[in-house]
């Protein structure tokens, strides 16, 4: 077996295990430098391995979410906060507050120490969001569901219907809003939204009924035991992704505070980027080759 990464066939749990392990070690070490290096590592891993599936964009969604977190948290840090003495960057006018909430202040001098400590704090959250964004954009939600043990299968069914409805819902909302424009109505307004909700619900319901009819007529739920077409297997690749997360986490937790060690841990977390992609499976063309790939 060659040690090249077939990104379609990496066990979906490998990326989930990778991100959860790293998130745990990030919480334990609570080191902003480690968080930053993990953010970079997950970005690199996603750029390298993501496909063009509908869920592949979730990492860029996560990045947008991170930007929002950063902006809001820093705004709050500037406006409100417990005074921390230090080098004053600039001073905002202070809003007088009643005596009984002494200790909290709105406005006043903004020190670089206060900003840095808030930034360090929020970076941990940012790191965790980035890791989860990476896992969702690398692992197919439907394949993750199928890899669940049988007792979770009913849950899996509900999730299947739900995940397939969500993109449909977004598409329906777009379509109906366009239709409103075409009838010459300006967007917005509560009355309009109520009018949009009805067709939207009808649309969604109709689709769910179609889906459940299709599943029923294709024999879904006929057997307690199901088989799996091309089941996901856990091989050397999956183990090495897991090992990189373990090593990185271990190094980060024992040497918290040492920024060089944090950098090395970050590199370890993203080391799988160095694995070559197996080209044959990206081309969608070959018929036999990925059968071999799946058995490897």
């Amino acid at each position: 077996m060659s040690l090249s990464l077939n990104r379609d066939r990496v066990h979906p749990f490998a990326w989930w295990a990778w991100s959860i392990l790293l998130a745990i070690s990030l919480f334990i070490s609570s080191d902003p430098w480690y968080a930053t290096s993990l953010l970079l590592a997950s970005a690199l891993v996603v750029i390298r391995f993501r496909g063009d599936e509908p869920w592949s964009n979730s990492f860029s969604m996560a990045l947008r979410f991170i930007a929002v977190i950063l902006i809001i948290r820093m705004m709050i840090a500037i406006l409100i906060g417990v005074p921390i003495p230090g080098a004053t960057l600039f001073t905002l006018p202070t809003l007088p507050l009643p005596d009984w909430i002494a200790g909290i202040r709105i406005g006043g001098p903004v020190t670089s120490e206060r900003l840095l400590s808030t930034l360090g704090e929020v970076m941990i959250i940012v790191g965790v969001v980035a890791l989860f964004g990476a896992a969702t954009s690398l692992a197919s939600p439907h394949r993750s569901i199928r890899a669940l043990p049988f007792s979770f299968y009913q849950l899996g069914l509900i999730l299947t219907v739900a995940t397939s409805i969500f993109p449909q819902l977004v598409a329906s909302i777009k379509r109906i809003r366009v239709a409103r424009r075409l009838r010459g109505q300006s967007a917005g307004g509560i009355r309009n939204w109520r009018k949009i909700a009805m067709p939207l619900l009808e649309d969604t319901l109709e689709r769910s009924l179609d889906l459940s009819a299709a599943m029923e007529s294709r024999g879904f739920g006929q057997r307690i035991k199901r088989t799996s077409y091309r089941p996901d297997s856990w091989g050397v690749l999956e183990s090495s992704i897991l090992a990189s997360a373990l090593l990185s986490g271990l190094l980060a937790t024992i040497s918290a505070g040492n920024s060089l060690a944090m950098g090395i841990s970050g590199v370890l977390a993203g080391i799988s980027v160095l694995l070559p992609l197996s080209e044959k499976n990206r081309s969608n063309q070959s018929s036999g080759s990925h059968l071999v790939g799946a058995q490897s």
Partner: protein
Amino acid sequence: MISFRKVSLIYPNSMTTVFDDVTLEVGEGEFVLLIGATGMGKSSALKLMNGLVPHHTGGILGGDIQVGGISTATVRPGELAHLIGIVGQNPINGFVTDIVEEEIAFAMESLAIDESVMRKRVEEVLDLLALTPLRRRTIASLSGGEQQRVAIAAALVMNPRILLLDEPTSALDPVAAEEVLAILQRIVHDLGVTVVIAEHRLERVIHYAERIIYIASDGTVQVGTPQDVMRNAEIAPPIVELARALGWEEIPLSVRDARRISAKETKDVGVGEPSPADIAVKAREQVVEVKRASLGYSAQEVINEITCSISSGEIVALMGRNGSGKSTLLKSLAGLVEVIRGEIKVCGKDPRGLSGSDLIELIGYIPQEPSDLLYGESVEEECALADHDNQLKAGTTLTLAQRLLPEINPKTHPRDLSEGQRLILVLAIVLTTSPKLLILDEPTRGLDYQSKERLISILRERAGSHSSAVLLATHDVELVAELAERVLFIADGELVSDGDVREVLTASLPFAPQISKIFAPSKWLTVREVVDALGR
């Protein structure tokens, strides 16, 4: 293989029966076509065959339906999964997974078929439907015809004895439709599978059918050979209309038969050539002007440097294969798509800058799903809302709707109207402002011939007495032949031809209407023209 004995069906909360005492028989390995006006129960008939009706929908079933010796009343549809494959009207709604291969394997996984067997069958079906190059693609990235093929593959993989399809070609362009139908015919011939297919566009399927189940508008069901049924059915493709109008003894079903018969029947008279169209003398002003426009979504170009124009009073058809960019061009004229380069003007204004009443007074747009525009609880309320939005006198829209749809009851909920009636209602709402430009995206999808006739006369009137410009995107070749003056043909985001309807349609084989194929090389397009020319 399938037998109905004295079958009656009534849906819950309904006062009328869908079927009343129907008895019919479908044999092994037959290619059966199911026809009837919209709302007469074609889909219900298909769902009865695999037990989705009444098990999944509710309703009371009288009589007995046997499929391969099993009575559908006694088992759930899932237990027939190995025997019957069904492909619904909108296959995209029935897809459970994201990847082509996994979708095909889904039914076998549910029935716990051994992995090695699964692999083999998936390979076979991929080959049969020419899907091998697409096996790893996400379903969302496929074109309409490809999705239809995936749905058929997912049903065929169980090696069913019966395959049921509900309007498999209605969303497809003529070329893709031909591909799907050829595959179905091969399945019947090579594998002996019984295929039952419900379809509106008879001109596409009738020559494949061995028998027809015809549900007449009074609810009676007739089963027979295509020749017998076509002799006096209310629904008929142009080729049959021609035979009836000219009083031919034999009813042709394929272009080949028709050419043979017409050579014999009209040999003394000769049909001759159509006279050049009368050049319209009425003054026309330019309504749409597109200059070297490239259009697309988020920097991805769908339309590449198109230049064209449409004048008032003109009916123009926009044609092309699935995914060639027709809808994008239409949407850009209503200001819904980004113009990357070039410019688009409607009556000298940029449609992107228009909104509210400025927009609808200039542009009327009927989207692919006309019901998107409807959200009232009754026809009456819907029309009142339109009056309010357009600042018109109360009752204006309702009067128009009642003129276009005389049989309509103002108290009906729009969802309870038939597909055709709903389209006409939306047309009425859009037309109250007398827009200068009327745009229709795929208006005849799912419409029967009667509704189509009605649509044609409304659009003609608009272009004639109101001198609106009408632009419609469609795959319906016969509609274009009947209605349009000019055709814009798009391929892969580029304008390939722009010319008189007669020249463009007769020059292309897949997009030629039946009549033109029969009388080629003479450039006739419609039954009416030929009948007029022969003076009968």
